[in-house]
Structures are given as structure tokens and as C-alpha cells.
């Protein structure tokens, strides 16, 4: 069957779903971000397995490697971009996490929302006076 033959694709999709579940469900922001990174790497994994050719060799010429046997270099280039994006987004998000923790002293999204709501009602009351 095709599914067992395309098992690398299937694995990538499975990891994608695990990552997405973590992003949706986890309340801790750092865990959400770990889930986000898992999602990202799973898509990269998908790209790379899509570039693979059976009995392929790395796309490095020299030493008489045969171009027809090399794996596809294009997905690899695209994934490099993806890795950069992943690092950038993670760094930005973590800096926000650090700042939020300074203000609220917690990493839990529910708690942060609760404290934020309290803050807002208080502000509204002050404005009303």
C-alpha cells in the first residue's frame, strides 16, 4: 500500500499534528513554542523526504558522483530558509515571554489572561471615577 511506502511523509504529517495539538492545548507558553518548533521541523522533514531519491547521494559533485543519482537540492535550499524563520520566530516569541514574565510572574496563558482582565476592570473603574 502507498501509505507504508510513503512512510516518511506519514511520519512528517504525524509530527505536524503532534506539534499542532501542543500549540492548541498547552497552557504554558514555552510549551506552545516547543510545539510550534516541532510543527516547523516536521514540515522541513516533509520537504527533505520529498527531495529524496532512492539510492541517492548528497548533491555534492566531485569524486565522480553521478548527477542522475543525486537527491533533489531544491527542497534543501527551501528548508534552509525555513530553519532561519524558525529561529527568528522562536527568538522573538521568547523575548516576549521574558517580558510577560517580568510583568505577570507566570508563563501560564490562562493566568495571564485572568490577571489582564483584572487589570482592565481596575483601569476602567479608575477611569470611571
Amino acid at each position, binding site marked *: 500500500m502507498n501509505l507504508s511506502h*510513503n512512510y516518511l511523509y506519514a511520519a512528517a504529517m504525524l509530527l505536524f*499534528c503532534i506539534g499542532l495539538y501542543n500549540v492548541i*492545548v498547552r497552557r504554558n507558553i514555552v510549551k506552545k513554542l516547543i510545539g510550534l518548533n516541532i510543527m516547523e521541523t516536521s514540515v522541513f522533514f516533509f520537504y527533505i523526504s520529498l527531495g529524496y531519491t532512492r539510492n541517492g547521494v548528497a548533491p555534492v*559533485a566531485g569524486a565522480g558522483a553521478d548527477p542522475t543519482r*543525486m537527491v533533489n537540492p531544491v527542497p534543501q535550499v527551501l528548508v*534552509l*530558509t525555513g530553519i532561519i524563520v524558525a529561529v527568528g520566530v522562536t527568538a*522573538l516569541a521568547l*523575548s516576549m515571554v521574558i517580558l510577560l514574565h517580568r510583568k505577570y510572574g507566570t508563563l501560564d496563558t490562562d493566568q495571564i489572561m485572568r490577571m489582564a482582565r483584572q487589570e482592565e476592570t481596575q483601569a476602567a473603574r479608575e477611569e470611571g471615577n
Partner: protein
Amino acid sequence: MKRLLALLFVAALAVLLLFLVTKMPSLGDPDNPARQGMATQYLERSPEDTGAQDAVTAVNVNYRGYDTMGKVGIIYCALMGVLAVLGREKRGRIQARLDGARVAPSKIVEVMVRFVIPFIILFSAYVIIHAEISPGGGFQGGAIIGASMIIFTTIFGLQEASRRMPQGLRVPLEGSAIMTFFVLGVLGIAGGGTFLTYAWPRVSTSIQPALANWLSVIVEMAIGIGVGFALISILFAMMREEEDLEPVA
């Protein structure tokens, strides 16, 4: 409840995606549409066109160099975003320590780190410059440069590290990659091509390919420096203790 809903949603998505997998072209087949077309052209032409043995580097720096400029822009954007959130430090040394993670470095560790760091930097230089022939490239090398400085910072502290790499040094180097790309792009136009053609104006066509090769090595080095220093600056901003940078209103 929310968990259950999410689980159901994700499970449904997984079933859909797995169904999609059964419809995909089979894994590793050389006749896949993705393997045809530009991929084969890249593999066959890249050594003559660009002089780079590594097709990934060739595509990355040469054929799709504009994308790479975008990538450098992304890292720069991330750096600026971090600085927008946490604020750039005041000039001079940064006072900071890692909360709760203070390890008193022993003499052995210090000596070892001093000993190892030059080799790490040497390795990153190898990864960058040798990218044409072997796996590697500016981004990987830049990350390794960043990693060496991260080791230095964790052992000797942020104050010492920021003395070695003051802000005045980091600010221009973070953007060096974009500037190099721009300069080379203009050079390409002057040399008779379009933006990001690796060419030099008014040289004979016989040495143009070798020149292109050298220019792409320069690009890789600029990427390495730019990415490395951007990562270091991000790390400094994240490790730094808070300053009162509250806005006025």
C-alpha cells in the same frame, strides 16, 4: 473539554493528511514531478555555471541569491523585533547575570573555554569558506560563530562578553550581510547582468566565472558574520537584566 475538542480536531486533520499521503507520488521515485524540471537542471549545470561543487550552496547563493538576501533580512528582522520588545542596551558594558543559574566557573573550565573557542571559530570559518565544495555555508557557519560566543558568555558572564563585543562593533556587523548583498547586486548591474549577478564591471569574460566564485565566497562570509552577530545580539538582549525603559505614556 477544550482538550477533547482539540484532540478530535487534530485527529481528524491527521486522518485527512494521511489520506493525502496515500495520494502522493511515491517516495524516492526518480520520476517524480519534483525531481524533474529545474532540479535536474540545477544538478547538471551548477558546477559549470557557478563553480560550486555543492549544488545546495550553488542554488542557495547563486541561482536563488535573492531568497538568501531575504533570509538575511528575516534574521535581521528577528533581531530588531527582539530589540523592540526588550530594548537595546545602553552603551558600554551590560550588567547581568542569569537568575538562578549562576555557576561559579572553575579555573579548568575557563582555561578550556579559552582554548576551545579559537578552534570553534576556525571550524566555522572552514564551514563557511569550504561551502563551495562540501556541506556547509554561511548560515551554518554563522550559527557556529554564535554558538562559540554563547559558550564564552555563559562562562565569563555578559559583562566580559559585552566588553569584547561592544555595541559599536555589533551594530554595523549585524547588517553587514544585507549591505554586502546590495553592493554585489549593484556590481552585477554594473557588470552587465542584473541584480545579484556575480560579476565585476570591465573584466575580461575569461576570468568572470572564477570571479563569480570568489564573490560568492565573500557573500557566504558576510552571511556568516551577519547571522553570527545577529544571534549574539539577540542572546545579549535576552540575557540582559531589565532596564527601566518604560515608555512615557
